[in-house]
């Protein structure tokens, strides 16, 4: 794989286009996560959380901060790529890229970077909101940043796969509604799995989101229900797997070429 200046220009074009897209509709992309997070903090953090007491040695409102930030990152990275790539298929302007001398990996990298950009921006917005409700002390900047970016990459790739297979706008909302949201809510955002009976603890270990939430919680609070090494191995493993699958789909032209 040779790197060329033209690839860099093309990659930057895709990323800038993607960023402009979600910035232009910031009322639909950046604002809602901020409002939702405020509601979570008020209801679960202040009203209910005050009666729950400490969890894993932290105030409940502080305990849920990492999960809420990561939940926003996950859903927004995914939503950005699935909506944008499906939109380009629906209006056929994906053909602008298909006719150009662009390797498929540049197209994938561009869309994923767009998803990461939105995930990171939403993550920053939610973190700023969280600062009003909790006193966040970052335990490890390296772990926090790494999980933040890697999770964003992982769900951008997942969004891309969803978009490739989608044939209607319904198809791009099915996975987020029926798969992503349950996995996120059951991924330890609002609780420690140690509170669950052993059987459900073991079931929870099959949920990949659990590893990301816990790794991110470790980065911010220094506590985790699972091993950090295992969490990183799973995140990176999934990224490798989904990247390879995305490239396979693009190279075969699945969903975009007959």
């Amino acid at each position: 794989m040779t790197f060329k200046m033209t690839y860099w220009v093309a990659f930057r074009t895709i990323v800038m286009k993607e960023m402009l897209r979600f910035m232009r509709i910031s009322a639909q992309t950046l604002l809602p996560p901020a409002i939702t997070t405020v509601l979570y903090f008020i209801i679960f953090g202040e009203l209910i959380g005050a009666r729950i007491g400490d969890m894993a040695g932290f105030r409940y409102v502080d305990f849920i901060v990492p999960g809420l930030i990561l939940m926003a990152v996950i859903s927004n990275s995914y939503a950005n790529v699935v909506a944008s790539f499906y939109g380009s298929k629906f209006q056929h302007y994906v053909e602008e890229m298909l006719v150009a001398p662009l390797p498929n990996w540049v197209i994938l990298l561009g869309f994923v970077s767009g998803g990461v950009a939105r995930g990171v921006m939403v993550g920053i917005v939610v973190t700023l909101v969280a600062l009003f409700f909790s006193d966040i002390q970052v335990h490890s900047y390296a772990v926090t940043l790494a999980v933040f970016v890697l999770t964003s990459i992982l769900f951008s790739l997942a969004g891309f796969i969803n978009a490739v297979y989608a044939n209607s706008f319904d198809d791009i909302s099915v996975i987020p509604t029926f798969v992503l949201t349950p996995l996120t809510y059951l991924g330890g955002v609002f609780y420690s799995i140690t509170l669950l009976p052993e059987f459900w603890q073991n079931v929870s270990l099959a949920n990949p989101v659990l590893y990301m939430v816990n790794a991110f919680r470790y980065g911010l609070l220094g506590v985790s229900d699972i091993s950090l090494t295992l969490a990183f191995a799973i995140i990176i493993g999934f990224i490798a797997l989904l990247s390879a699958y995305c490239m396979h789909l693009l190279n075969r032209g699945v969903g975009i070429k007959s």
Partner: protein
Amino acid sequence: MWPFVFNLSLMTPSLNGDVLIVKALHIEQLTKVYPKGVQALSGIDLRVEQGDFFALLGPNGAGKSTAIGVVCSLLNKTSGKVRIFGHDLDTEREAAKACIGLAPQEFNFNMFDPVVEILTNQAGYYGIPHAEAAERAEKLLRQLHLWDKRRVQARLLSGGMKRRLMIARALVHHPRLLILDEPTAGVDIEIRHSMWAFLREINQQGVTIILTTHYLEEAENLCRNIAIISQGRIVEQTQVHELLRRLHQEVFVIDTAQALDKMPSIEGFKLDKVADHRMEVSVSREHGLSQLFAGLNAAGVEVVSLRNKQNRLEQLFMDVVNHSRGTGV
């Protein structure tokens, strides 16, 4: 001025030492079978010379857009070879793609993007830095009378403007081969003529143009060479004037000064009255128009105007297509 006219590096020596000029497009035995088993192309061969203005004609569903889709990498071929300026689409895909500019039949830009961004983004995909892309976009938008609309969302443009935007986008990376799939469909006559003038200018500057159209007058006016595709096969490939030469009979519509109470009889010509002041005359190649005028003059018929009843190419097109289908209509 287009930044290239002719490139000596594209001339390759043949075995006997002569120099062969690489074709702008060289298709060999191209077949395409869609997943549900529909055979859209059945081994077509096509050669388009550099600098040509080439028409690819055919009825709906004949395989024109499929052939273009394969050449532009929008469709996967089933078998066959495609070379663009000598670059094999299988082994030198990026080099081949860089040579082509495509304005497809259907609008395929983001309707919510401003006009100028559609051009600069497309240039970006070809690796053209933003500053240069912006300059090229401005030049093209001015040439195609879209500069005033540069900040308008594409969805708000008229049909004719959208067609021009597609042509501008196809040209922004300075392609050597421009492929236009029905570029003037739904465009009014005035704009169509200005687009023709623009395309002629681009072609004169060295860009090879392949055009599909249902307006055969367009092909006759613009193109030097022509291929007719029917049922996934090339059934004719020749020069436009050569094809027109084959026309054995033409039908003319004649308007007369006086009412045609009694139709004149002129030997060798078949005259039919279609209205009080109008007749249709079938003229074969053996009989010239001067003979017809002499006959009309002798019969005391004063001719006000004369025109072809049907576009000449249209007549031939129907003959070729019907012959290929075996309908012989």
